[in-house]
Structure formats: structure tokens, C-alpha cells
């Protein structure tokens, strides 16, 4: 996993509440057995005017001229500004894979769906939670300023605007640590293998009906 420390980049809008995982990456693209290559189909139904199919070359599909990510001013964006309950719906990790593959490293929103929030950290994306009023302001400043760039500082836990204003955000210590170091958490958990074995042995004695049944 890529580590995340400080990024500075263009912010782009996803200006609606309850953006669900079907909207982030429509299900026809879930048929891939790979982890990469989802970027061109991020927000597929909003981004293109035709219906997307796996394997279809996106470079000559008709673009929706009104969709912000298609506008020149948001090209190269690495920070997505979003609204309440971003990422609701399914548990598909294809949603963060698509965001990451497109080039987003950070999302800023007032709230997220739980599973999506969790999945972001596993894929090197930082989902920042800021209060609704602050997110509102960032949206306004972004719309007003072409080439609007933000700094997201994970060690310092703040978002900085071009005017130098800083907004603190909370992030859980373990997730922060893993993201800063780009750690694979399976490796980390396996360091606790003795504790897992101890637990397992006790649990097996206590609830033997849960063991050795599927074979």
C-alpha cells in the first residue's frame, strides 16, 4: 500500500449527498478479477453519455460536458470534495480502487458510510471528516477559484487552504499509523499469531460446535 503523509493538489467536486458505491463504480465493472484499471470507469454513469461496458475503450466515449471531472479546471485533481454519507451502499472495494486509480488520494466530506470509510484506509486513501459548514466553505472557495489547491497533512492532522487557513481533523491512531507507514495490516495482525492461537484454543473448548464443521 502507498503511504500517505502530506499531499497538495487540486480539489474537485462531487456535489451531492448519499453518493453510493454503484455511482462510484457501476456493477458491470465488478466482474474484473483484478485490482487495478478501474479509474477510467470512476463515476461512469455521470461521466459519459453512453452506457459503459467492461473492456470498452473509454478514450473515445462521449463525455458528459457538465460533469465536473470532465472540465479542464479539475484535471489532475487528487482531492475530492464530497457531501454527507459518501460511499454508502455496497462493501465493494472497487469503489476506493477506482478513486485511487483515477488519482484521488484524499476525500473531504462531512460523513461517510462505515464500510467505505474503512476500505479507503486499506487502499492508501485518506477520508477526511470536516464539519458541514467547513466543507460548504471549501466547496464555495473551490467554485470561485480556478486551480483551487488544498494541502492535506496527515501527521499534523489538518487541511490547509490557499489562504493559509487550517482545519484540524480527527483520525484514529492505528489507521493513521498504518497509512503513514503504508503498512500491510495482515503482516501486523500476524505478529499477534500467538494471541490468536490462544484465543482459538479457548474458544474451541468452549464452543466446539463452531469448529471442523465445513468440510
Amino acid at each position, binding site marked *: 500500500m502507498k503511504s500517505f503523509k502530506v499531499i497538495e493538489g487540486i480539489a474537485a467536486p462531487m456535489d*451531492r*449527498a*448519499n453518493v*453510493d458505491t*454503484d*455511482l462510484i463504480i*457501476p*456493477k*458491470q465493472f*465488478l*466482474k*474484473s*478479477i*483484478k*485490482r487495478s484499471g478501474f479509474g477510467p470507469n470512476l463515476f461512469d*454513469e455521470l461521466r459519459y453519455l453512453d*452506457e459503459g461496458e*467492461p473492456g470498452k475503450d473509454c478514450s473515445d466515449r462521449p463525455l458528459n460536458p457538465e460533469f465536473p471531472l470532465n472540465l479542464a479546471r479539475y484535471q489532475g485533481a487528487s482531492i475530492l470534495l464530497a*457531501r*454527507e*454519507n459518501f460511499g*454508502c*451502499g*455496497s*462493501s*465493494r*472495494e472497487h469503489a*476506493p480502487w477506482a478513486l485511487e486509480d483515477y488519482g484521488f488520494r484524499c476525500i473531504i466530506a462531512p*460523513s461517510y*458510510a*462505515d*464500510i467505505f470509510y*474503512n*476500505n479507503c484506509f*486499506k*487502499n492508501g486513501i485518506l477520508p477526511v471528516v470536516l464539519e458541514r459548514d467547513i466543507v460548504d466553505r471549501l466547496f464555495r472557495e473551490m467554485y470561485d477559484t480556478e486551480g483551487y489547491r488544498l494541502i492535506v497533512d496527515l501527521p499534523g492532522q489538518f487541511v490547509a487552504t490557499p489562504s493559509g487557513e487550517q482545519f484540524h481533523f480527527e483520525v*484514529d*491512531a*492505528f489507521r493513521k499509523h498504518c497509512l503513514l507507514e503504508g503498512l500491510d*495490516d*495482515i503482516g501486523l*495482525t*500476524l505478529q*499477534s*499469531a500467538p*494471541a*490468536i492461537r490462544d*484465543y*482459538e484454543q479457548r*474458544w474451541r473448548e*468452549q*464452543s*466446539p*460446535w*463452531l*469448529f*471442523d*464443521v*465445513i*468440510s
Partner: protein
Amino acid sequence: MAGKTLYDKLWLSHLVEAREDGSALIYIDRQLIHEVTSPQAFEGLRLAGRQPWRRDANLAVPDHNVPTDSLERSGGVAAIADPVSRLQVQTLDENCADFDIVEFEINDVRQGIVHVVGPEQGATLPGMTVVCGDSHTSTHGALGALAHGIGTSEVEHALATQCLIQQKMKNMLVRIDGRLQTGVTAKDAVLAVIGEIGTAGGTGYAIEFGGEVVRNMSMEGRMTMCNMSIEAGARAGMVAVDDTTLDYVRGRPYAPRDDLWERAEVAWRELHSDDDAQFDRVVVLRGEEIKPQVTWGTSPEMVLPVDGVLPDPAAEENPTRRIAIERALQYMGLEAGSRITDIRPDRIFIGSCTNSRIEDLRAAAEVVKGRKIAPGIKQALVVPGSGEVKRQAEAEGLHTIFLEAGMEWREPGCSMCLAMNADKLGAGEHCASTSNRNFEGRQGFGGRTHLVSPAMAAAAAVAGHFVDVRAMQE
């Protein structure tokens, strides 16, 4: 000290290691695997040279991509027409063979939607932690288990370590008092709950469903409710164990027998919230007040009773909500102020992990029995949740009732719930669907989904528009 909730008990009994930063290592008893969210997890194991920690804790079944058309299905995996779907199912078969994981293959009678199969086979049991790379894993909580969906990285993590790194959730009690009216089902109850608390209302919570209505509900109904707790934002939903639970589990293929059963039953009888347990939030509904529900918009919280009138965005003060209503009405091709009963579905879908169990099919069959689907309906699909449900339904003659009414009787799978196989809505078509999500494009590009109970879907099929099924049952 205050007592413990059911969720607290399940959490504590699976706690391997509590960490200083508030996270915890939680032991996973059962992982269910399907073809869509597992290929990258198995690939990750291979790349890291890892093996599953405990292969007998896993059970796999293909469901999302499998064709439900009998002819296509009869040829097995090799006959799946869509090459991308075929590859995904084949990849599951190969991964399960390589890692020695039990799989119910495409034409095994035990195959079906993973959330129907788990409880049906006794592969998910009370007191377990259950995970699956699918958000509707919350379904299994109906058995008094802690069950929730995970992403693919966590599928790999659970395979490799038999654990997950978790934060404890907060406790919410959703209590439904009194009784449901005849014709009003678990689906209507859970849609009413979502209408009440919203699609983010349960975010960060584990929901326990309780109250007289839930106590009197069948296991199928409880599964329907827990299934949709994710639509209220809660990763996990659950119901306390009682006689209904035990009667359901007893005798299932993977359920314990003889003295193991006796011991299990003693432990399972403890799986309820203590009388003095504290919940962080309590939501109370009156069963008698719940009417049959129909969603009109593109989020499950956009729901109304069948006699309802569509909202007017102009009357909404909150700008985010106003825009959401406008956009939903536009996407759905509906007018503010029109009636739910004016909506005319083009297609009917009875199926999905929410409502494809035997009780659901019986309820739908009861409504269409001796009737015909309306001429305006292009297609009415009935898709049983598993091979076992299909066999049972056929033994009861339900399939004949559906076929005589002009409906199609299909092979088990996810089907039009998310349209990853050939079963899809056309652009602009309305569907009365017993599934769980009405998101834009979910059932096909440009498709318009209305979530309802099986009885309500069947009633709409017969009438050609949404109607109060209670009127047809009199």
C-alpha cells in the same frame, strides 16, 4: 454496572486483543465467499505466499453472476454466455480448489445467494461472528450472530488471520411494539424504520431489532429486517435468540447434533440483551401504524406508505434534501404530488437476499393464485434464493401458480437485484422489486426501482400499478 447488550456479548466473546488506540482484534468464526469480491483477496494470498488460517471456517458459493435462465444454467459454468461473468465464476472454482475451500458449485442444489445459503445450511449459527465481502452479510444477524460486510482487503485479512481489526460500534435498539396488520410484512417494517431514521441513521451503530413484532416474526422475516440494516447505515443488525431461532437451526446440515446441540443450546439461550442493558439510541415504532411501503426515489429512505403522495421539493427547506428530491423525481420520471398507486411498473422482480426465501415465495403466490399478471407488465421474474428454496417451492406447487399467472420461474441467484447477469431493466423502465437498493442504475442502466414486499410486488403485477395488497386479500 449496567447489563450488556447482545452486541456487547458477541463482541466480548470474540475479543482476541484490545489495543490501546481503541481498535481490537476480533476472531471470525465463519467467512462466506462469493465470486465478485474474492478474486483479488486470493490473489493477495498467493502474492504474499500465505495460506488460509483455518480452511474449515470458510464456505464459498457463486451467486452474483450466475445465469438464472434454465437453459443457460443447465450447461454449468462453461455455458455462461457472458465471458467476463464466466471467468469470475471459474476463478472462484479454481481458487477454492487451490486453497481447499468447500464450495457449492453453480448447479449444486445447495447453491444460492450466499445470505440465503448460510442460515439454510446451518453454516451460520447463533453466537458466531460472520463476515462476507458483501454488505448484506448483516442478514445473518437474525440468528443472534454478529455479522457484517467487509471489503476485499478484509476478506484477505480474515482468510489469512481468522481475525479482523475492528472498532466497537455503538448500540441501537429498534423496538417495534404491538402487532403488524395482516398483509404488512417484515419488509414493510424495515422500510418504515429506514424512512424514520434515514439511510445514515444507523451509521456507527449495531442495530438490535426487538419488541413484540420482532418476537412474533418468523426467521425469514427477521432475516429480511437484518438484511436491510445496512440500508439504514448500520453494518450489523441482529435479533436475540429465542425458540423461533432454535427451531429454525435444529436439524440443519451443519448445525450441531445430540450432546453438542444440548451444550450449544445452553450457550445460545444467553444471547439476548440484559434487561438493564443501556443502548446509545432507542427508536420505537408501533406495529399497527405501519402500512405497506413503496419507495418512490433513488435512496431507500425515499419511502412512503402505499396510500402516500410524492413529495414536493418546493416544500422542502433543507437545500441538500430539496436537491435530492428534485433529482430523484427527475431520475424516476415522476411528478411531485402524484400518488404511489399511480405508478405502473414495467417489470416485477421477486427475489434477492432480502426476499427470496420460502415464506416470501408463499406470500407472493398467495396473491397471484388464480389471477393473471396485468397486460402492461413486460416481465415478472420469480427467482428463488437457493436450490433448496426452489425445490421446496416446487414441492408445494408454487411454481405452477406463478407460471399460470404469466410469471417466469428461474434458477437461484442474485439476478435482477443488481443485474450483473442477463436479468436487467431497460432504461426508463419501472420495476416493483423485492430487493434492497433503489440506487440509480442498480437494476440496469437508467432503470427505476421501487422497493416493496413480495406480496406488494405480486399485487402490483396483477393490478398493473401499485395497490394496497390488503385490499386484495380481503
